[in-house]
């Protein structure tokens, strides 16, 4: 059984289509990230799942039952807000207890759950403080705790780390994942940060202007992007349009691009003559063979060096671990055939 099933979901606001025809299944215990640039509809989708927005079309099921018409207060989801949304006049304990009081849980159960969560989140010493006496990281944990005490079927995160500084972010990332696993929660996590999405998720849902661009594991999404958008949004990519020249040897196809001819390994023959291909800057090998390229700019990044290159009528980026190439130098670039991907969208 799926934990969440989204079927044919469309949401329009006064003629503006925020989400169109979204289908998604999430397995129990799975951590799924909704990733995309701002305005892609990821927060709208989260609000529809939590019940704050009603879909224009389509249905949502949680553990098999249709919850499309159920308001957020009766939906078994718990939301962690970007702003934390802690009640400022209530202590940490009262904040954690709030949802349980609404459920009219007996006092002993309440105390037990709050104690359990406060220990797991290392909040035991802060229980009688007000939220504004806590650091950002602590407030973030209270907000997570307030969702966890509800023991929801689904936990939803709305960019929970965007108000934390970079160092704390990495730490909380790991913590959120650990707790999600410990409690066996199904999680949907909204972010615009691709490294967060790649690091945390079981699967990433890449959204672009209200449509699902690609749903895959982080590895597949990175190594086998299906569209130009996916290739560009996740990591860096060199994308070219080109003409298929023909099969060089079995499974090896030559494609002519403005930057030169690339040989790619393909299982099936390309559809049509015009194609779009991409490869990652770190997969290019600088050596004795391959395309001749002139270095336009060199940027040392610490663990690699970023080279902007020009070849023929095309430009691309190359990342080398160690290189002596300088601006103006001519180098030779070879991209292994199995590192080149054909994109599905038409050039």
């Amino acid at each position: 059984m799926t934990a969440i099933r989204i079927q044919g979901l469309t949401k329009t606001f006064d003629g503006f289509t925020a989400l169109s025809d979204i289908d998604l299944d999430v397995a129990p215990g799975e951590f799924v990230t909704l990733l995309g640039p701002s305005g892609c509809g990821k927060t709208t989708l989260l609000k529809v799942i939590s019940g704050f927005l009603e879909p224009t079309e389509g249905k949502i099921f949680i553990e098999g039952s249709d919850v499309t018409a159920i308001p957020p207060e009766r939906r078994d989801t718990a939301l962690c807000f970007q702003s934390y949304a802690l009640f400022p006049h209530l202590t940490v304990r009262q904040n954690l207890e709030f949802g349980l009081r609404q459920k009219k849980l007996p006092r002993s159960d309440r105390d037990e759950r709050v104690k359990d969560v406060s220990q797991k989140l290392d909040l035991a010493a802060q229980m009688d403080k007000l939220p504004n006496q806590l650091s950002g990281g602590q407030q973030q944990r209270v907000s997570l705790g307030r969702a966890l005490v509800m023991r929801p079927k689904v936990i939803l995160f709305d960019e929970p780390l965007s108000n934390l500084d970079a160092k704390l972010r990495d730490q909380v990332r790991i913590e959120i994942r650990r707790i999600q696993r410990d409690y066996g929660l199904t999680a949907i996590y909204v972010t615009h940060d691709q490294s967060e999405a790649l690091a945390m998720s079981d699967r990433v849902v890449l959204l672009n202007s209200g449509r699902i661009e690609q749903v895959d594991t982080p590895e597949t999404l990175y190594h086998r992007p299906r569209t130009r958008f996916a290739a560009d949004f996740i990591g860096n990519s060199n994308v070219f349009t080109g003409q298929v020249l023909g099969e060089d040897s079995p499974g090896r196809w030559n494609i002519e691009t403005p930057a030169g001819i690339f040989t790619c390994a393909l299982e099936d023959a390309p559809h049509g003559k015009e194609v779009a291909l991409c490869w990652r800057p770190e997969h290019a090998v600088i050596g004795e063979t391959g395309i001749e390229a002139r270095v336009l700019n060199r940027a040392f990044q610490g663990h690699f060096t970023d080279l902007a290159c020009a070849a023929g009528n095309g430009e691309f980026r190359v990342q080398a671990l160690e290189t002596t190439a300088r601006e103006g130098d001519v180098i030779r670039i070879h991209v292994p055939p199995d590192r080149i991907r054909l994109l599905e969208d038409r050039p």
Partner: protein
Amino acid sequence: MTREQLNKALLILLLVICTIWLVIPFGMAILWSLVDPSEPWTADRLLPPAMSFWRWRDMWENSSLQVAMATSYTLAPLAALLSLALATPTAYALGRIAFPGRELAKLLCLLPLVVPGFVTAIFFTSLLFQLGLHTWRFGAILFAHAVLALPYAIRIMTVSFEQVRQDHIDAARDLGATPLARFRVAFLPALRPGIFATLLIVFIQSIEEFAIAFILGSPDVVTIPTLLFSALGQDYVRPNAAVLSLILVVPNVILMLILERLLKSANPTLASGKG
């Protein structure tokens, strides 16, 4: 003279002016209220020659002061509550619902304040007469005070409703709160200072209002200002007027101090997270 010294001198000057501004009228009112009828306070004396509480006792026992105070202090809190009740729905709409022309509506709500009080009073009372409300004079004054204080009440409550954070409402909802619980946890803490401010300001407005209370009330209903104005009129006795004006102003000063404290203490609880 350095810039710092100049700043300091100007600050002291300002404080002195403010002090004089407050101290002289107050001091004079207090002194005049203490003038004993046995010997008048003539212009050649710095202080009254004989001082006693005779005027205070006399006003308390031999005028309609007791009745007037009872009326004023029943009228003002009721007007404050009524005005708050009338203003809240409008303020909710202006503060929390997006609709075309909202800014214009906010401005229109403040517009009555530019009309001089007496002008409003004359025409508003004629309206009440036409509605037949004048048959219950106290009720008519109460209604008029509540309505005329609406611009203040709506303005303050609108700002308060704008302060309520949508994420708090949503969080309460997400955690299963009923509409009442949502109001208590998300709305009330943000609204509380505004509610107190509204109550106090309408209270003070009503306590000090003369024109409407006079037109609608006289001669049956006497409030402190109508009593004061009559003491300023044909039978003007300065010491008696001083007693009345002090009685009028002292509760207001106390209320202002309470208000100040409330507004100060209420602010930090509004801040949370990135705020």
